[in-house]
Structure formats: structure tokens, C-alpha cells
């Protein structure tokens, strides 16, 4: 079985800037099990138009590089609120499942310099089309067609494969001869055919199936609905005209109704008398006999003749038996353009229309294990696992990346210790591959040396360095020491053994400010700053910075292995089964703080004999 690990999900920042709900006062009692969160206590909620201060930036304030700062911050936090957990992104929080996306699903708004997920964009429908025959449907007929294809695209109601039209009498003559009717719809996959239905559906022509089917299929529910509708239409005062289509009758009715509303309930005016409504004539009664007949039919037909939930939901009136299923016309699809929802959008502007996916803007992360012998589905407790965290830059600018992670993974009683060896580094621009080759070494060497220089400059004091640096790719080492975790996955809802590391990624780069809205290629101007300068526009460059949380699913912690034991006092030690160590990793687990790792002092990865450091490779030129 293919291992799903490792995976990387990115949390959309809209998760944090969303206006929170205010139905707090009386309607939502504060839960007894959870300590009240900010959400519960916030009464003065900001206007949704002005975003809340992004939580993503708050940690930057509390990241004290010195320990004293840290402690101060921590104490303050402790006094005011249980705030640290709020600051850290917790991948185990049930809400986070809704804001985490693979990078492929994300978009990027060039105007706000922000990641946009499917939840925080506004969709605008460009056109409707049938996914089967690929015909575009004009918008005027989409709704009246029931959002379905009106050509000959029908799906099997049982297996949802495409139905084909076949003749009942397979022609024995030459193939050129057009087959003679009647025809049925036939599923090539499960061999379901409309001839099996009760009563069977046979078509006279192999084309315009929708028209023919509409004549042949009518359900009793539709008739009942029509009867009711007609009844109410009559009651509303106009038996001849349908109230839905007659504006005159409509306005009169509205007047009547409004009069009723204003005059109160007790008065018996003329209008009220007219509105006196009767019940429908002979409503359909519940009959025991009918229901018992259904039971008998069920007993006789057996389980296999009934529809399952999926088949039932796909049909408007939820048929109970397979023989009542009808061919399903293919549901249309839409081509949609996305627009950033951030500003109160004016429909006409093309501004804030998202052009490219996030993959083209934000650095993509990748995780590899260094030691290929470790199994990701059973990481060994107390052993230092080293992974290679690679950052690939899609931009044509050099970016500087800083990675921050809580020292202990949050949200669980069994936190793993995580250390990023070189949290700040740069990734070179995504220059054309051929640039290097064609321009020989001229641009490549200085940029690389500069990059290497900066990387070293930031990290030399901390004795950590990047692991590998390529054209637009840099990788650093991340060390993980999982604790020993009792296997309670069969009893607990949460899988404590799943090891997910939240990482706060901050990216900074210089970008050109002045970019025309009508510029067809969004990234084009970015790519050639020199040419833009040559064109005469003032080359304004601004520092762009954005940040987001991402979650790396590293693997699952396995059973403990003999010989590898906790080497540090505050890592959780072996505990009896089923009793979570509540207070053992004292502050580390309950209130994980983001610390800038490695700061030289105590956060360094534990040096266990089993995980002897491999010498780091030098940066490749």
C-alpha cells in the first residue's frame, strides 16, 4: 500500500481574518469542558469589512529572541488569556481541517499579496457546458433545463456510466443501414437498460431523447404537486390564471395580503373574506393498506431490488425500487472565474480577478527523509529523525524565507519535539534554466555567491547552515523527536500517533509596485525588471511580505523500540497504556510557544547516540 506520508497542507490566512461570530451572550453557553476561548469572550467584534489583525503576525511580536523576553511574554499571556494556544496553529483543531489545503487547491491574489483558498474567493460563472458532449449551453436556458444537458447525454442511474442508445432489434443486415427502432438506453458498464423498467421505456428515434423521455416519464409526485399548486392558485383568487405568471393577479394579491396584514386579524373586511381559504379537496390520506402492500413488495423483491442511498438521492423523488429509476441527464458544469472577495467588489472591474494559482507565487515545500531506512508509518519514539525540508521558489525574484515552528507540536498530550536547524535562508530566483547555460557564468555566480553569503551571514552565528542550495531550491534540515505514544487509535477519536508539524512560513521579496491592471501577463512584468526599466517606467520596488501556516504530515509514530529511551528529562517517558501523561512535558506541551530555533541555547536537538549527526554537506556551488 502506498504510504500517504509525507504530505504538506497550507492553511489559508482567511482562517484568521474571518469575522468571528457574535451569537455569544445568551445563545451560546460557554462550554464546560473547554476553557472559554477568545471567540467566546469577544463582545466588541469588529466590523467584517475591516479585517481583524492577522493572527499570523502576532507571533512575530512575541517571538523574543532572548529568553527573558520570552518569559515576560509568556507570563503576560498567562495572566491575560490562555492565549498561546490561540497563537499557534493547531492542526488537530477540528476547524483547521477546513482551512488546510494542498497547494494545488490554492490561489493567490496579486493585489492583496495573499493566499486565497476556495473559501475566500467569489466565483463568477463564465459559461455552462455539458461535461459529456462538451456543448456550451446558453445561460437563458440553463435553469429551465434543470441544469442538465438536453442533448443525448444520459447517465445510468445505477452505476452513473454514460448510457448509449441501442436498438432493441439488433440489425442483422449490413452495418451501413440505420438500425430500426424502437430504441432503448443501454449501460455498457452494468448492462442496465430502460427496457427493464416497469413500465419499460422505449424510444422511437435515436435522437432528441430528452423530448421523448419527458413524455414517457411522469411521476405521481409531480401530479400531486401540480394539484396542490393549482389548488392554491385557485384559492388565491384567480382560478383561471396561474398566479405565478400573471402580474395583474399578483399585484392584486399583494394588495390583499398587505391589507390583511395592516388591518389586523379580527376584522372581516371584504378582502379578508376573499382570502378565506379552503383545504385541498380530498387530501391524500395515510392508508395502512397501501403501506403494508409496500412492505409486502419489499419482502418479495428482496434487498437487491431496492435503491441505495446514493442512487436515491440522485433522483428528485427518491424512488425506493430499482425498477423506478430513470435515466439521469448529465449535470452541467460551469467554467468559473475567481475574484478576490476582499474588497467589496464592483462587478465591472477586472481588478481582483485572480489569474494564476498559488503554485506560481508561493514557495512550495517538500519533505524528504534523509535516512531512507526509516519507515514513515512507524517512526521510532525517542529517536531523532531528520528530514529534508526543501523550499522551491516559483518567483522571478529572490525570496528570503523564515520558518518558525512550535518547539513541541501542539494540540496533543504527546508532543513531539521539532527543531529546524536553519530557520532563515534565501531561495534564489526562478531564472530561466537556459539563462545559466547561455549566459555562461556571469549572472549565475554572483547571485549564488550572494545567496550563499546571505545564508551564511544569517546562520553563521547560529552554527547552522542550509543543507543544499540549487538554482531556485534550498533545503534545510528539520529534526523530529517523537515521544512514546500509547496506541489508542481504536478507542480514541483523535489519532495521537499521527505526527503533524505546523510551520509558520514567512516570505519576503522585492516586487515591482507599479503594475498595470490591464497587463495580460501578471508575472510578466515581474520577470524582467531590467526590460521594464528600459521601457522608461519608474522602477519602484517594494518589499512584499506574506506569511502563512502550513502543516507537514510527517508520519505516524510507531511502537517503542528496545534500547532507545528518552534522553532528556522533559521528554515523556514510557507510560502505562491508556494513561496519558498530563503534566509531564510541563509547559512544553500545554502551552507550546514559538521559539526561534535554534537560538543557540536549550532548544537544540537532543544528541542521542542512535541519531548521530551526519556531517552536513557543504553548499553546492
Amino acid at each position, binding site marked *: 500500500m502506498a504510504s500517504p506520508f509525507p504530505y504538506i497542507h497550507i492553511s489559508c490566512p482567511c482562517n484568521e481574518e474571518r469575522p468571528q461570530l457574535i451569537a455569544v451572550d445568551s445563545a451560546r453557553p460557554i462550554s464546560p469542558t473547554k476553557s472559554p476561548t477568545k471567540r467566546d469572550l469577544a463582545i466588541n467584534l469588529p466590523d467584517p469589512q475591516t479585517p481583524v489583525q492577522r493572527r499570523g503576525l502576532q507571533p512575530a511580536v512575541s517571538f523574543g529572541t532572548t529568553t527573558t523576553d520570552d518569559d515576560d511574554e509568556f507570563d503576560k499571556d498567562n495572566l491575560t488569556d490562555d492565549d498561546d494556544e490561540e497563537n499557534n496553529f493547531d492542526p488537530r483543531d477540528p476547524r483547521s481541517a477546513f482551512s488546510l489545503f494542498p497547494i494545488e487547491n490554492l490561489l493567490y491574489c496579486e493585489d492583496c499579496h495573499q493566499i486565497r483558498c476556495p473559501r475566500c474567493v467569489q466565483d463568477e460563472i463564465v459559461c455552462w457546458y455539458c461535461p459529456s458532449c462538451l456543448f456550451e449551453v446558453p445561460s437563458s436556458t440553463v435553469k429551465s433545463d434543470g441544469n442538465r444537458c438536453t442533448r443525448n447525454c444520459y447517465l445510468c442511474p445505477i452505476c452513473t456510466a454514460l448510457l448509449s442508445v441501442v436498438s432493441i432489434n439488433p440489425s442483422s443486415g449490413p452495418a451501413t443501414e440505420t438500425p430500426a427502432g424502437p430504441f432503448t438506453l443501454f449501460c455498457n458498464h452494468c448492462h442496465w437498460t430502460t427496457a427493464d423498467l416497469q413500465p419499460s421505456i422505449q424510444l422511437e428515434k435515436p435522437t432528441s431523447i430528452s423530448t421523448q423521455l419527458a413524455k414517457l416519464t411522469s411521476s405521481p409526485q409531480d401530479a400531486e404537486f401540480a394539484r396542490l399548486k393549482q389548488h392554491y392558485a385557485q384559492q388565491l383568487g384567480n382560478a383561471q390564471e396561474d398566479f405565478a405568471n400573471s402580474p395583474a393577479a399578483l399585484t392584486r394579491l399583494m394588495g390583499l395580503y398587505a391589507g390583511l396584514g395592516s388591518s389586523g386579524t379580527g376584522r372581516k373586511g371584504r378582502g379578508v373574506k376573499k382570502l378565506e381559504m379552503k383545504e385541498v379537496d380530498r387530501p391524500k390520506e395515510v392508508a395502512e393498506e397501501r403501506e403494508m402492500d409496500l412492505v409486502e413488495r419489499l419482502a418479495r423483491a428482496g434487498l437487491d431490488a431496492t435503491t441505495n442511498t446514493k442512487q436515491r438521492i440522485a433522483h428528485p423523488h427518491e424512488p425506493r425500487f430499482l425498477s423506478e429509476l430513470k435515466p439521469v*441527464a448529465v449535470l452541467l458544469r460551469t467554467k468559473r472565474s475567481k475574484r478576490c472577495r476582499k474588497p467589496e467588489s464592483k462587478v465591472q472591474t477586472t481588478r481582483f480577478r485572480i489569474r494564476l494559482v498559488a503554485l506560481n507565487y508561493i514557495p512550495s515545500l517538500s519533505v524528504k527523509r534523509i535516512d531512507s531506512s526509516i519507515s514513515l508509518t512507524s517512526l521510532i519514539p525517542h529517536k531523532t529523525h531528520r528530514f529534508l525540508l526543501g523550499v522551491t521558489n516559483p518567483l522571478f525574484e529572490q525570496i528570503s524565507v523564515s520558518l518558525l515552528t512550535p518547539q513541541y507540536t501542539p494540540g496533543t498530550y504527546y508532543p513531539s519535539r521539532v527543531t529546524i536547524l536553519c530557520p532563515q535562508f534565501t531561495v534564489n530566483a526562478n531564472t530561466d534554466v537556459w539563462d545559466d547555460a547561455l549566459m555562461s557564468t556571469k549572472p549565475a555566480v554572483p547571485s549564488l555567491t550572494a545567496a550563499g553569503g546571505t545564508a551564511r551571514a544569517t546562520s553563521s552565528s547560529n552554527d547552522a547552515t542550509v543543507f543544499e542550495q540549487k538554482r531556485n531550491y534550498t533545503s534545510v534540515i528539520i529534526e523530529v523527536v517523537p515521544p512514546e505514544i500509547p496506541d489508542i487509535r481504536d478507542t480514541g477519536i483523535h489519532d495521537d500517533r499521527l505526527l503533524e508539524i505546523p510551520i509558520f512560513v514567512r516570505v519576503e521579496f522585492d516586487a515591482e509596485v507599479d503594475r498595470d491592471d490591464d497587463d495580460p501577463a501578471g508575472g510578466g512584468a515581474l520577470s524582467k525588471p531590467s526590460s521594464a526599466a528600459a521601457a522608461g517606467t519608474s522602477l519602484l520596488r517594494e518589499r512584499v511580505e506574506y506569511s502563512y501556516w502550513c502543516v507537514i504530515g510527517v508520519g505516524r509514530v510507531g511502537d517503542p523500540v528496545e534500547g532507545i529511551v528518552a534522553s532528556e528529562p522533559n521528554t515523556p517517558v514510557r507510560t502505562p497504556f491508556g494513561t496519558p501523561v498530563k503534566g509531564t512535558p510541563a509547559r512544553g506541551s500545554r502551552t507550546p510557544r514559538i521559539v526561534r530555533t535554534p537560538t543557540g541555547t536549550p532548544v537544540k536537538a537532543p544528541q542521542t547516540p542512535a541519531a548521530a549527526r551526519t556531517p552536513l554537506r557543504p553548499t553546492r556551488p
Partner: protein
Amino acid sequence: MSSRDPSRLSATTTPYKPSSTSFRSSTSGNPTTPQSRLSASAFSSPGGSLHQVDEPLIFEVGTRFFRAGFANESAPRCKIGITPDMYGRVGMKGRGGTRANRLTGEAAGPRIRNTGSEEWELWTNDLRLKDLGVVEDLMERVLREAYNKHLLIESKSKRLIIILPPLVPVALQNMLSQLLFVHFQPPTITYLSSPVLSCLAAGLRSALVVDIGWQETTITPVYELRPLTSFIKISSRGSKSLVECFGQLLWNTFKSKGDKENWWRILNWAEVEDLLSRCGWCRSSSDAREAARQRARNAFGLPREKEGGEDEYNEDGEYIRKTSADIRAQRRRETIEEAVVQTQFKTPLLKERTTSLTLPFEAMAVPAEYAFFLPSWTKVQSFKTPEYIPVPSPEDLMDGCQGRVEYEDESDFTLPYLVFLALMRCPVDVRAVCIPRIVITGGASNIPGLKSRILGDLKDLVEDRGGWDIVKPRNLTEDARRRELVEKRPKKVELEMLESEKDDLRIQWEKIGGVPPGTIRGVETMGAWAGGSILSGARIKGAVEVERERFLSTHRI
């Protein structure tokens, strides 16, 4: 044949309609004739299409299902069920990693979410333990799917009509409005209460609406299209308890002794629910009474009564001729007795990956008994025990099952009794109108036999109690005997006259399309969604509309 005629066909290019009666079918006076339904001129008038623009969307928000569609159509365009997958991340199946077999420890497929009911529902009524944010996120996901996949419409343009259960928490309603106005930006939202619309969709103006929902059953009297909210009765017996009873029965059937595991860890909730919705049924009132009598005999150690035999003669020794209906019922009973249901469940955590069960079809009626018709303290047995329902102890029978629960609440009552109580509490005028208009709706009401069972039991109950009296008469039979001794017995001729008078009355009532007062009668409804569709088709502006700008300035409904 008109369809053979090519010229005709080309003229009537009727597009496909899944619900063939929408606004079109009712454009003519007689909607049942296909000719008028298909006539193109009837619905291609410019007026019709102009009005189409401001037709609202209708959403029905339930605990398990979300329905959405357009006004004037007979069925919603989509029905989206909540599954645990929806609580998961995009692009990740299950929860990461694999799960292991309980005994062998081998990998048993991806770690899918095998949870209790909480991840199969949108919200719980007990919001103390539910993070409203999660509800909001999930709701957003569901709405987005409805808009983008099924409705295919831009959300900004359409007014909304949202049908909510009568007892939805205000916090949820606020959340829903907030979510819609911020993310989907409809101009206005109108909230409607589902019992009123169920009543409307039954063609009635007053009714007692029994909504057997997922979390709970709510019994709402509706009088002249107004819900009488202060007379609502609630019971926690609902579809959820139905599925839970069934799952427990199944797990009890094949679990090894002493295994304390929850059934929903072993069996997939969806599979259990699916099986129940496919072949679950409910015994008829008379059958259930007979079964209860047999159980009572069993409790006192009496042998089972033979069927047939004595039934042919009544108490006076007269021979009862079997009517054709009796014969039919007999044959039906035999069919049901013979039928079996063969199923297979995926049980990846057990030693066997799949567990096959062959159950008698009769057993499929048992979960409904437990969920709706047995006292709440009845312990769920397994399909291996005879009769599937525990034999009561003689003490319980003697006590009349009193005093078993210390603090009895309405969830302990059986459903028919609760309906009785609800009617009882109503003002007498409302009761008089509601008794012949009982509308049973909700997810579980689709189980064949359930509606007539509730009504049948209610009839029996009223008969036993001798009418609608708050004080339960203790000694009915004595009274009857005394009356018999004292009163003069009418002659046979008089009796017949009385009967014929009654018949006349009945005919008279039928002529005006009603039922005699006091007759317990159930009325079928098309469901709250169809009611909303009818109502919005009538284009009456809602009395209470929530407007976007106003809501966003106050954040309160």
C-alpha cells in the same frame, strides 16, 4: 402517434425537465394533460421569463441533509447528506495513515473516520459541546457544493428562502445568516418554519405536524397556518435513535461475548443506515398488539397461542367468514415470514474483513419498535434472541410499566402516546381541527408502515382511554357493565337506524370533503421543501425578511 410526426417534434423542442411540473405545468388550467404541458407557447412568454428572475432559491437545512432548489419545482435540485468525509481536509482521504486490525494488528485500509453520529450531522441541539465555528465551516462547504455543483447560479443574485426546523437554536440561525451574507451575499433571506410548510404541502391549513427528524421528533400543532409554538412536544426518539438501535442489534448479533466495543467503531454508520432505509419497515398496529400479547403470555409462563383455529369463531361462537382482505393479510404475513435479507458489512477491525448476515425480513421491523414504540429503558437485544424483543417481567406488566424511570420525561413516552399528549394539551378547538389532520413527515416517516402504525396505536390508545379525557378512567369495563345493567338496551332495529343515521352523517361529511370530527386521520404531505416551493411560487413577500445591509450592520437577526 404524435411523436412520429417529425414536424410536430421539431416544433415542440421541450427541454429535459427532471421535475416536469414546475411553473410550466400549471400555466394551463389542467396540468395533467401532457399536451398542454408540452406546448411550447405556454411557457415561452416573455412575461414568464421576466418574472423568473426574482424567484428565490429554497434551502432546507436539516441536521443530516441539506436540500436546495428553485421555487415552483416539485423536488429540490440537490440533496446533500453530511458525511464524516466532509469534516476532513481537502485532498486527504480519511485522517492520514492507516488503521489496524484489532486482533492481528495488520493494516486495514486508510484511516477513515469511523465515528459516532456526531460527524454525520451538521449540528447538535446541545450547542455546549459543539464548536459553532466548525458548524459554520461545514455549512459553508455544503453551501458551496450546492451553488457550484447543482444550482449553477451566482449566489449574489438570488433571494433565499430558508426552511428551518421549529426548534433551531438562535445562535445557529445567526451563524447561518452571517455565513450567507458574508460568503454568498444574497440580497435577502426569509426564514420559514418547516411544520407550517409541511402542512401547506399536505394541502391543509391546520394540522398536527409530527416531524420525525434526525435528532428528535417534534410535534407541532399548526392552526390556520400558524405554528402554536407553546404546544410543541419534543422527544429524543428520532431517526438517529432508530439507526443506533439497528446498529446495536446487528453488533449484538455477531459480537463475541464480553466485547465492549461500540457498534459504530465496527460497522460503518452509512452501511447500517443504508440497509435500514432500504428494507426497514414497521409492523402494523394489530400485528404489534398481537406480538405484545404473546410476549405478555410468555412473561407469565403461558404457552404461545396458536394462530388460526379459534380465530374462526368469535366469542359468541359464530363462525366468522374470512373476507378477501383477511386472506390477503394472511398471504402477506406469509410472504413476510418467508423473506430473508442477506447483507454483508465491512468490518475491517474484526478478524474477518467482511461479515455476512442472513436475517429474516421480520427482523427489519424491530429497530422501529425499539426506537419508537417500546419504553425507553428497554434493553436492546440481538437478532439471535427469539422475538428480538425482551420478554417483560410480570412485575413490570402488573405495574403497567410505571415507576421505572425516576424522572420521567417526554422522551420516555412512546411516540403514539406523545402524539396523544400533544393533542391533549392543545386548546379544544385546535384539537378538534387537528385530530383528523395528522401529518407525519421527516426522514423516518419514509419507513413503510410507520405512519399507519403511529395512527393505529393512537386510535387504540384513544379507544382504551375512552376518549379525550385528561383523567385516565381506571375501570372502563366495570362502567360499561354497570351501564349495561342500568340502561335499556336498544333494539336491533333501533341500532340499525342509528347506524344508518351515522352513515348519512358520514356521507354528508364526505360530500363537503371533510371527515367527521374526532376521526383520527393521517394526511400525506409532500414535505416542507415542496411547501416552500409552493409558497414562494405564490410570490407573497415574506413578512420577515432579513436584509443584507441591515444584518451586516447589526449582526443580529
